[in-house]
């Protein structure tokens, strides 16, 4: 996180989605274009209320497509700009994200994920991992993807996302989920960025004022060689991002033989399961990717060096990040997956049962639905309240 010089720390209780908005404004974001969709609407509502008070622009666009193209225009003009949405709406932003990448226009895109495909549901999910990390739209590109797991991280990561976007001239995504978006936690808000300290953008299309040649923001290259050169230059930037920007949290990984890999909301559940496993004498650890792209491959290397033999990727989907874990492990350790989807959250007990299975060399449940969960749990839990049971 950038400089934390503020003398008196503000510690407040806030909702995740609102923290994203507040921290974005503190990072110098003055332009927001969006379209209402559950479960991220509080973010837009907060922006609508607060941005005009600090001289910023909130604009409810006619569609997600229009919103992302407004972000493209505002970013091209040199503004610190963002949009936010949830899964179905983010699909509509794929066009603009690709143009931003192709024209090297910075901007921040927030996805507060919900279940899919299609309309899916409105409960928390992580089923847009592929969409986020394999590039949102068409063409050869990636973008940094940051995954907060606490409300505090919502603040810290979006604050940083704007700098990443400007530094590498790329769209940058905050991949959150409905759970962290909707929950309230105490948070220390980052300091207000001095707008004069923001990076200069000599490439921006803000009018040449007769003082330079005209700037063109463009992603069209009719010469194949020129397009290839442009893509190669961009991928050199990606290599630099991969080398310098991988971020993760390691918990109990120094001697871990079984490492659970989980991000965002799933990592909160996995954390409890790992602690419970340790209490049972299992050498388990947690690797929590904070950057999903670039994926923290160096951390995977490190835990393997430390003696990890087995990875368990725990996700709120049918198995997406597990592919990156497998690629990073590259045959050096076994990689299994456990996930719930559709907005269903696994319990720590469910995850613990998988860790125990791995510890005992039993197969893990591939991707448990409600029925399978009942069969793998050591002791099925009756979650009905006494009232529901009629006691």
């Amino acid at each position, binding site marked *: 996180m950038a400089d934390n010089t503020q003398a008196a720390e503000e510690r407040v209780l806030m909702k995740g989605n609102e923290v994203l908005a507040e921290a974005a404004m503190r990072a110098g974001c003055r332009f927001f274009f969006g379209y209402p969709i559950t479960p991220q609407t509080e973010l837009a509502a907060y922006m609508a209320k607060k941005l005009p008070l600090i001289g910023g622009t909130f604009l409810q666009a006619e569609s997600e497509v229009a919103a992302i*193209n*407004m972000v*493209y225009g*505002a970013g091209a003009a040199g503004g610190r700009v963002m949009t936010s949405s949830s899964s179905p709406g983010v699909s509509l932003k794929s066009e603009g994200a690709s143009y931003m990448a192709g024209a090297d226009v910075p901007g921040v895109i927030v996805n507060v994920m919900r279940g899919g495909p299609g309309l899916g549901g409105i409960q928390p999910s992580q089923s847009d991992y592929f969409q986020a990390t394999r590039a949102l739209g068409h063409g050869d590109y990636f973008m940094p993807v940051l995954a907060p797991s606490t409300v505090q991280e919502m603040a810290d990561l979006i604050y940083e996302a704007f700098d990443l976007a400007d530094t590498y001239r790329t769209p940058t995504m905050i991949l959150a989920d409905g759970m962290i978006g909707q929950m309230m936690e105490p948070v220390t808000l980052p300091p207000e960025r001095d707008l004069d300290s923001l990076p200069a953008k000599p490439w921006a299309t803000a009018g040449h004022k*007769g003082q330079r040649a005209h700037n063109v923001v*463009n992603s069209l290259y009719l010469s194949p060689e020129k397009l290839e050169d442009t893509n190669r230059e961009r991928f050199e930037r990606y290599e630099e991002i991969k080398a310098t920007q991988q971020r993760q949290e390691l918990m109990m990984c120094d001697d871990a033989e079984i490492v659970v890999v989980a991000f965002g909301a799933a990592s909160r559940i996995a954390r409890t399961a790992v602690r419970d496993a340790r209490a049972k004498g299992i050498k388990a650890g947690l690797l929590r990717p904070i950057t999903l792209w670039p994926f923290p491959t160096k951390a995977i290397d490190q835990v393997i060096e430390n003696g990890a033999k087995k990875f368990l990727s725990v996700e709120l989907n049918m198995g997406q990040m597990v592919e990156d874990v497998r690629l990073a492990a590259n045959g050096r350790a076994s990689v299994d997956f456990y996930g719930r989807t559709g907005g269903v959250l696994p319990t720590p007990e469910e995850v613990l049962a998988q860790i125990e299975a791995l510890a005992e060399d039993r197969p893990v449940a591939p991707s448990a639905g409600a029925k399978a969960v009942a069969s793998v749990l050591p002791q099925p839990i009756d979650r009905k309240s006494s009232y529901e049971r009629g006691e």
Partner: protein
Amino acid sequence: MANTVTLPDYQVERIGSQIAEGETIKSARPHALSDAIFNYCPGCTHGIVNRLVAEVIDELGIEGKTVGVAPVGCSVMCYDFFNCDMIEAAHGRAPAVATGVKRVHPENVVFAYQGDGDLASIGTAETVHAATRGEKITVIFINNAIYGMTGGQMAPTSLPNQVTQTSPYGRDVSKAGYPVRISEMLSTLDGVAYVERVTCDSRQHIIQAKKAIKKAFQNQIDGLGYSLVEVVATCPTNWGMTPLDAFQWLRDNMLPYYPLGVYKDVVADGYANAAEAALERAKDCPIAQQKKED
């Protein structure tokens, strides 16, 4: 503004060397145009309109604060033709991109240059909403009733029974529906300050078209609201005609369907701007009359 006509830098040697002493330049390429060769087909009217936009930029002295947004279509590469800052937008999204630029730099003059497929088909939503928001931008709309760049498919503005690559038996309105009349449609929206439909088939019409384009830029400088100039244009290549025959076809078929004229002009109607006209139109709606406190 009385201008002494001078050659743009890149023509000083090439053309200037051919001018004798004592001769003065009466008409020359506008400075806001670059030396890039238009990628348009011979006889294509896009080039005329590009020149008019550039002349207006010169005459208003706004090149340094103008940002243009290029479309997808035959004019996709117009970011190379103008000397002001330019952005290339995705197909149909120019009004949204222009909105983003204008919101960041309200002091800039922002224009979108779009064809009929771009503006009236894939970008209809962006067009309608930028207009109804009263976005203070200028839109130049080239309506030549066909998709030129992709090789002559049916456009939203293709005429009934017009033969194109994707209406090979003529546009069947019972199946493909009717052409969109953009100027008429947008003139009903409250955010719009000015809409005029012009054409470019003759000296007189081109002079009128330039007046309209200049007004659409001036309106933006004056903060009046959204302005659009629809230029009824030709596509000799994909219409399968000579440039001159295309003009005749335009006069015979396009102009009766797309009549020229001013469709909305809030200033001519006696209002200071689009907002004032909108307030008057909704005079019987109490909530619309509420004054915003600053």
